């Protein structure tokens, strides 16, 4: 691990990798994944506003584009935060099962130092936690977003003009999603 010499703390390559794996920052691939999913879920309610609220796409196209982009950014922000919180939980939950899986996969006749085994377990644990936290964060936030949009649009703001209804429903849903995701639990 890190060795402290006097007042300086030297971070090794292993520490750097560990920090990167469990930091709030996401990889480029993960970021694209989040933005694509956020875009899809932000575009989905437009169907309701077009067909049920009878908003004309040609007339309201510009507003739709602006709000969709805003919503995409806020929802992907929510995904990122949720994933960060969930990853630690899933990493703890799957620790034993992943360790067993990795140890099972090592042939008995192969002599591997303990450090290498631990590294493999840590890498696999990180991979599983990354996958489960990403997919669950997307699922959970999508459910919440769709629910809030329908609630605002067809119940809370139903008497408003369709244009304001759309802007407030989508804005509030995405905003609340981003806000809830900043919680620690």
């Amino acid at each position, binding site marked *: 691990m890190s060795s402290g010499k006097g007042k300086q703390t030297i971070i090794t390559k292993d520490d750097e990798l560990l920090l990167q794996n469990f930091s709030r920052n996401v990889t480029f691939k993960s970021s694209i994944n989040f933005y694509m999913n956020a875009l899809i879920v932000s575009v989905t309610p437009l169907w309701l506003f077009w067909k049920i609220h009878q908003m004309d796409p040609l007339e309201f196209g510009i507003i739709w584009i602006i709000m969709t982009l805003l919503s995409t950014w806020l929802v992907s922000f929510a995904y990122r935060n949720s994933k960060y919180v969930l990853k630690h939980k899933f990493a703890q939950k799957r620790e034993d099962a992943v360790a*067993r*899986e990795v140890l099972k996969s090592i042939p008995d006749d192969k002599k591997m130092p303990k450090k290498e085994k631990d590294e493999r377990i840590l890498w696999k644990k990180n991979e599983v936690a990354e996958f489960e936290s990403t997919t669950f964060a997307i699922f959970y936030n999508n*459910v919440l977003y*769709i629910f809030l949009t329908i609630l605002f649009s067809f119940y809370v703001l139903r008497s408003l003009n369709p244009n304001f209804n759309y802007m407030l429903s989508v804005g509030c849903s995405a905003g609340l999603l981003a806000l809830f995701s900043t919680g620690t639990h």
Partner: protein
Amino acid sequence: LLVSKTILNEYLVAGKEITVKYSIFNVGESAAMEVSLHDDGFQKSSYDIVSGSTKAEWERIAPETNVSHIVVVVPLTAGSYNLSYAQVAYKANAETNDFQHGYTSQVGEIYVAQRRDFDRLFSLHLADWLIFCAMTMTTLAIPYSLYNQSRKKYEQQDLAAAAQKKAKSL
């Protein structure tokens, strides 16, 4: 004769039928003869007449009886319209040759709403909701099934390990 002109619809929508009812009440003691009703209020440029006629005639309306006439029209565009009175002409009794002229009650200004505003409030949109549900399912089902696959795999392993441990301890 007392003549009224009323609209039976609750909501007036462009492209949807409006039912107009004319009711003639003979409150006099003698029969009204050669009664004719004539309404110029529905111009061809603004309305399509779907059923009935804006002109009607009755040979005789007995005293203390009433008759009615229905016209169904479709307004072509949304907006405000003024539905004025229709005209009635009749002979007060069988002996006279003079026609008396009268007017129905006025409906006044009506507002015909756009079709899309009406649909927004009242249409069920079942097909639209079904399509939305199908679209939503893909954004929810795919990430959930991926998560669930991984979860089940590792939870089964945990259960198997726990069962093995229990068997060993026994």
